[in-house]
């Protein structure tokens, strides 16, 4: 623990490629703030991502990072955490990365409940590839030439899917409120198990209309749901703009602790079994 570090000390010296006004800056700020708040050791922190504007974030933090391929950040992060349980592992990426191409890993990570954090930076669009609809885009979102009449498909509900898949901590934050987001990230890190933070993070370039989120987003007044029925009633009906810790539950993390330390001669023993 190094209490002396400030949020800015957790930033690397690489200049983000993001558009001015992009919500992802706030997520970066929130992450470094949470790091500073918890006094995390930079050397024992790893950020893992896929591909997208959002997924560029790890390089902007002065920690270890892995910028993988599109949609697979969660898998990399899970492998890392299982191999190195003492590290703080945060996976992050966009809505396209996490809910479209990476949707399967999202569900299975929720079930598996490895002790790590996943921050989905949701701007309801594929920013990096110049503004196509993502699974969370409104049905009637008309701004992409690829779907000129809108995607016409019911939007993906990240919190509902996370709940149905077995996530044990679900929160929501908004790029317009990085302080709250920092607090949520810190809570997510401290939750034992898989913590899913749905971070609304506007894409100013392809979805300027998201500036309206400011007036829609509100902090959830009630405490976090602790029973899935209660949470389901929320997640199936909400518009998706309530922020805060939405749901928490305790369930055994995976993998279970291994019993005794391996025997010195374990390898020889294994080989010996093949002798006839």
């Amino acid at each position, binding site marked *: 623990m190094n209490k002396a570090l400030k949020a800015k000390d957790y930033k690397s010296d690489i200049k983000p490629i993001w558009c001015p006004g992009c919500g992802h800056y706030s997520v970066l700020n929130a992450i470094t703030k949470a790091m500073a708040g918890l006094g995390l050791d930079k050397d024992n922190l790893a950020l893992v991502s896929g591909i997208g504007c959002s997924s560029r974030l790890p*390089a902007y933090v002065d920690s*270890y990072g*892995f910028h993988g391929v599109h949609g697979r950040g969660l898998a990399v992060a899970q492998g890392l955490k299982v*191999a190195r349980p003492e590290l703080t592992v945060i996976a992050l990426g966009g809505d396209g990365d996490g809910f479209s191409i990476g949707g*399967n*890993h999202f569900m299975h990570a929720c079930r598996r409940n490895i002790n790590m954090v996943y921050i989905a930076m949701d701007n309801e669009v594929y920013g990096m590839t110049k503004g196509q609809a993502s699974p969370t885009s409104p049905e009637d979102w008309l701004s992409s030439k690829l779907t000129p009449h809108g995607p016409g498909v019911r939007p993906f509900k990240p919190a509902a899917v996370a709940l149905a898949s077995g996530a044990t901590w679900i929160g929501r934050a908004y790029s317009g409120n990085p302080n709250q987001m920092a607090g949520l990230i810190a809570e997510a890190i401290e939750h034992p198990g898989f913590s899913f933070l749905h971070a609304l993070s506007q894409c100013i370039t392809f979805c300027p209309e998201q500036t309206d989120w400011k007036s829609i987003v509100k902090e959830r007044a009630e405490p976090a749901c602790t029973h899935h029925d209660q949470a389901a009633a929320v997640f199936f009906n909400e518009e998706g703009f309530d922020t805060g810790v939405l749901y928490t539950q305790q369930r055994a993390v995976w993998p279970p602790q291994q019993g005794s330390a391996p025997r010195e001669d374990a390898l020889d023993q294994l080989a010996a079994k093949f002798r006839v």
Partner: protein
Amino acid sequence: MTQKHLSIAITGAGGAGVISCGELLLQAWGRAGGRGLLRKAFGPQIRGGESAALLKLTERERYTAAERYDLLVAMDWDNYARFEDEICLSADTLVICEEKKPVPEAVSALTSHIVTLPFAAEARSTHQDGRVNMLALGLLGKLLGLPVDSLCELAARKLTKKPDPYREAAELCIRRGAALSPPSELDIPPRSEAQRWYISGNQCAGLAALEAGIRLVAAYPITPASDTLEWLAGGLEAVGGQLIQAEDELAAINMCLGAAFGGVPAFTATSGPGLALMTESIGLAVASETPVTILNVQRGGPSTGIPTKSEQSDLNIALCGMHGDAPHLVLAPLDIADCVFTTGWSVKLAQHLQTAAIVLSDQFIGQSTAIISDPDRCNFEFPAASAASGDYLRYRLTESGVSALATPGDPGCRFTADGLEHNEKGTPSANNSDHQQQLQKRLHKLTAFDYGDSWGRVSGDGQVAMVGFGSSSAAMEEAAERLAEQGIAVRVVALRLLSPLPVNALQKALSGCEQVVVVEQNHGKQLYHYLKGQMDFEQTLHSYAVPGPVPLSPVQIAERVAGEVGQ
């Protein structure tokens, strides 16, 4: 001289237990100092269909599939036709079969050495839980001159979890079978007394992975690779590692990359369809210089193909299946025992050279079980790249092309690994010079490395050579022995290292040759085209490429080579 061998097929309907019979027989044979191979064949039914244990007992440790069977033990003849491709009989074949089931004409037309026995009735009368396969085991053990007690003990060990009467019945049936054994003139290969292992290639690969330091495996089940994984699950637990059953192969390979990024050597095993799903992320391993070892146990292709049969048709994808310029390692075990050396070497090379290594095994090598001597290990220890210093650059340009690899937790070496092109520090870069330098670095570290003598196994001499890889090796070597008997001297070059291709070493091994026959088990002449494309041959190149599902035939290879020489 070609070695003495005895081939035995044991067939029966599902539930007859012919596989167990074959396994126990081979174990007892091995314990008594013999050498041999067991292949298993099944009909298309998932369970309960017909199956066959295909044994080849040999003088030396060179294992090819039997081309002709000396002895066929048939518990019944249901769906026997299913195995016509696999079990070739001759006029000399001795057939021992159930007397209650009429012998098919296809069989009686071929051989007149047919002994019928009341297997079923004897099993039943010996014990109420008596089974014909144990009867056959006793009978075969006796024919081979194996101690009946040893058979009984091995059977009892296999049945430890079964209730007492089962074990009792097994022992009684084995003894009864031994007593029933007909006189025979089988020519039995000699045995010797050394310590032996009973193991499959997939198990060899799993063991070698652990011995080379693998401590995380993430994988998705697929035939014929799953048994490596199943063995590793237990093995990892014993050595304090972890196995993650992933939701798919995309997750599997990426979980491996995560662990490897964390400094924990990682491994996955798959077959063609799974390898295809992994190629994008193998490219990531190459670009981000994250070590990973992928065992690909080849099966019949393309697409779902023939999942339970062997083929060497994933060479193309293993060599060239990544987008962009993505140089990486491809190695192939030469036989079952060599799965230990080659897998171990692959893991160590992948770790040292910080890249992806694909180990191209196949169903034949992977799923056949054999008696082997204590296998050679890969004992190379590669020095770790010089420890990271204060001004750490993850992708620093070095003479060897290998940069120091820091892992999370290492103080002060923080960096972000990246699949985007990057500069020495790892920062994404589209600059021309960064791209040229990093491309060159990633290639150079592989091509400049000294692989020493382990790149292949060379034998024989002569103006004709056969070149092949993986499970073609033993077939080529046996073909060479046959040719030697005909007075034709032939060299055999079995390639263990396929990429980067050891061009100089290969050229040296072939120097003085005039003809080269490239031997492989696929349809597209994949190795032939690869070798031709990668190096200049002074020799005339020929291709001998025959796809699965039937194993490569040393006899046919020898004929073909003899033909080329005749020309």
